[in-house]
């Protein structure tokens, strides 16, 4: 494949998945500023390794590969800065330009409670939920992005949802009793 075709294919990938990478980054790090950095770094790294990824994908979709890059960069991000995602996603958004999510959850206490609960989940469960519900990835794609089997991913998602339900329910009781 010549360089012109490679660049064209990368442009297609970029256009198709910019929102996916940004959404993943945003829910992963909890604020727009770091999500922008993470998105930028993800595409730069993807560009560097794109030819090899295409060669090794054997025609399979490249979204899991792209999200895996973001996943690895996010892990490094936390390791370097020794910190966890910010707890209140919607608060972080208020300092930036208005975005879909903030306006959507505004006035919807149940959605706010779910977003807060997502941040309390272990990393792998949180990531699986973000990939499934924010990006609409199926089990196979999530498995490839996380480097797990399809079966393990199905169990991971099931447990993540059940744990989140428990967290939201517990937090709701706590809030109601205050």
């Amino acid at each position: 494949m010549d360089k012109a075709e490679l660049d064209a294919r990368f442009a297609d990938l970029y256009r198709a998945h910019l929102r996916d990478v940004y959404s993943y980054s945003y829910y992963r790090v909890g604020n727009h500023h770091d999500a922008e950095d993470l998105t930028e770094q993800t595409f730069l790294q993807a560009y560097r390794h794109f030819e090899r990824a295409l060669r090794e994908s054997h025609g399979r979709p490249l979204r899991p590969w792209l999200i895996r890059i973001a996943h690895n960069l996010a892990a490094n991000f936390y390791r370097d800065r020794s910190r966890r995602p910010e707890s209140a996603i919607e608060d972080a958004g208020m300092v930036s330009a208005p975005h879909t999510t903030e306006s959507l959850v505004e006035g919807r206490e149940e959605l706010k409670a779910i977003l807060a609960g997502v941040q309390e989940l272990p990393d792998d469960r949180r990531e699986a939920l973000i990939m499934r519900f924010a990006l609409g990835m199926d089990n196979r794609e999530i498995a490839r992005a996380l480097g797990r089997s399809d079966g393990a991913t199905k169990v991971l998602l099931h447990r993540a949802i059940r744990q989140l339900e428990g967290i939201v329910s517990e937090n709701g009781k706590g809030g109601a009793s205050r």
Partner: protein
Amino acid sequence: MSASAHDFELLLREALSPVEPPADLVERLETTLVSLTELAQEELDSWELSAMRDPRNWVRPAAAALVGVSAGSALVALRVRTRHRARRQQSGNLLDLAGRTIRDVADEARRILPDR
């Protein structure tokens, strides 16, 4: 799946709605990617700044930077046209335009690829 579990998943889908990337990120990222695609061309890879001090050497790299990108890449073509228009507005003559183009690509190269 029970009704309550189904409802919870619907709420979860709503809470985790996709987030649109901010316009300034799109602008910055596309500019960076265009710079990379331009830079990766062989002619620009082997080009040395020192050789560019003589304006007679500016024509070929400048032309490569402006029109040498993939014709099949809408993203790249769009961004190059945008940047070309901006440079034309700033440039009084063709020689100045070529110089600005070269400096632009070189600045991006130094910023983005310090290890190359």
